[in-house]
């Protein structure tokens, strides 16, 4: 019914001026540049895309990006749902501090995140690094480091989706399930998770899109070793600086397409959730 309360004023010249400004702004800032990436990719047909897939190092970079994004998303989904339950369903000392801390990854520059991770997990003089190195686990300049950095940066996205939904559904359905004999675990799988499933899916899609595009933190922790720890975003920079702009555009196009698909899925889910 909210729509019916919106009063419509006569459209004066100011209304049109604001519209033109908004559309023009978006066009110049977002639509046009992204469109140019697409047109540049297909400047000479499928040539640059073929170049991407024929270079084993670039293919490796794409694979690494996808793996890091999937693993980071999986970690953040499990952690995010658990953390949301903790934040909404229980009271404890320091809850507000924890809640504020969870938003930190969104406000801190990814490059700071990268440096911080090196300080803790660095192989030679990090806090844990040497110990883990001793066990044969290399974090920095290796895949675990890339996953860690990616997970850090996209940490709050699932939580931010799930927390409001958990608040909205309330606690009574869960209490009803408990009174009918369900264990805490059964209640979670049969009642809580189905109730928040769209929020989880939404959070997962956002996390995946964000993880795939991570650059700054990964650049610091990965070491950017060709064919080993170079991710797709790092490859874009490398190719661009090495005068292989067409390949850079092609990889950028692939990354952008995933994001566009993700946004399309999310808005589709949103419209479903609304009905």
């Amino acid at each position, binding site marked *: 019914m909210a729509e019916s309360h919106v009063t419509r004023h006569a459209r004066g010249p100011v209304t049109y001026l604001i519209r033109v400004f908004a559309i023009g702004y978006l066009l110049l800032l977002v639509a046009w540049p992204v469109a140019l990436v697409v047109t540049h990719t297909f400047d000479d047909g499928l040539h640059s895309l073929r170049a991407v897939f024929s270079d084993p190092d670039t293919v490796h970079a794409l694979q690494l990006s996808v793996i890091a994004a999937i693993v980071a998303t999986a970690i953040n989904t499990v952690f995010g749902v658990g953390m949301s339950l903790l934040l909404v369903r229980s009271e404890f000392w320091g809850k507000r501090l924890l809640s504020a801390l969870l938003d930190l990854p969104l406000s801190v520059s990814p490059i700071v995140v990268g440096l911080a991770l090196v300080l803790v997990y660095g192989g030679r003089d990090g806090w844990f690094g040497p110990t883990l190195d001793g066990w044969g686990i290399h974090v920095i300049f290796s895949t675990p480091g890339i996953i860690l950095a990616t997970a850090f940066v996209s940490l709050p996205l699932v939580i931010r989706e799930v927390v409001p939904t958990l608040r909205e559904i309330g606690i*009574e*359905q869960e*209490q*009803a399930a408990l*009174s*009918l*004999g*369900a264990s805490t675990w059964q209640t979670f799988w049969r*009642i809580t998770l*189905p109730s928040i499933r769209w929020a989880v899916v939404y959070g997962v899609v956002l996390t995946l899109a964000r993880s795939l595009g991570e650059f700054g933190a990964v650049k610091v922790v990965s070491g950017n070793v060709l064919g080993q720890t170079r991710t797709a975003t790092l490859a874009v920079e490398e190719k661009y600086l090495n005068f292989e702009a067409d390949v850079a555009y092609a990889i950028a196009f692939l990354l952008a397409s995933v994001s566009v698909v993700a946004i399309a899925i999310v808005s589709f889910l949103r419209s479903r959730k609304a009905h």
Partner: protein
Amino acid sequence: MSIEITGVNKRFGDFVALADIDLNIPTGQLTALLGPSGGGKTTLLRIIAGLEETDTGQIVIEGQDATRLPVQKRNVGFVFQHYAAFKHLSVARNIAFGLEIRKRPADEINRKVGELLDLVHLRQFAHRLPSQLSGGQRQRMALARALAIEPTVLLLDEPFGALDAKVRKELRDWLRRLHDEVHVTTVFVTHDQEEALEVADSIVVINEGRIEQIGTPDELYDAPASDFVLSFLGPVTKLGDRLIRPHDIEITRYEQAATASGPITRWTRVGFEIRLEVTPDDVLHPDPVQVTVTRAEATALGLHLGDRVWLRPAIGAEQVKA
């Protein structure tokens, strides 16, 4: 005794929700916990269910000490004011939930769910989602879901509180008839005295965390233990130095031996009933007295606003010294 409650205390911070509650609820009866909002009745119900823990005291359900038993193990059916329907499950799956958890064989579940759907008259809605049902239908579904596990006791928290007046009355009759069929020990919380008087076998009046009185509806109505119980079970007014129900006052336009006399100073017609206010001449008791008469009585007595009338308690009227 089906539910024995001894020495139960519950605090929420500084707020005393329940103070030294001792209560026995008999098997097979329909008991109402009646009282004003915030009086502790819902807290008591939730403590019986195991959804809330008591600070002190003991809860025994059918001879078994349930004080430290988690809600899952108590085998109680709980019905919430706002239904707590599982929104993503169909009506039939909602009802089947407790049986599925108990891993009963599929054919037994189907049979049982079918029976319960008939019992609550929702057979044709079996495959709908709760969002496609009306409030009254949802609450019947919630009842069937609670009954499916064959609970030792059935606990209802303001079960009709969220429904409109007409549906509430229908469901009230229906609950009474259902209880006569199923005979499960039932406790329901309500703040509506009419609901309690009409449905319950016995009523427990709870106010400010304490039990004011326990008894059958008639006992409570006829012999209220305190002026709180008297005033909570229906309208009261003060005639002379005693509290009395407005419809228990005899009113006449002719001078006679009376407790009070004075002009009719207010006249409110509500359907078949007329609510009058008479301001007594008595300087010791100058507060207006409420008198309720039917429209027919008012016509027969020839009453009009401003008429001088004489009031006295009707024969057999219940009075409590104020």
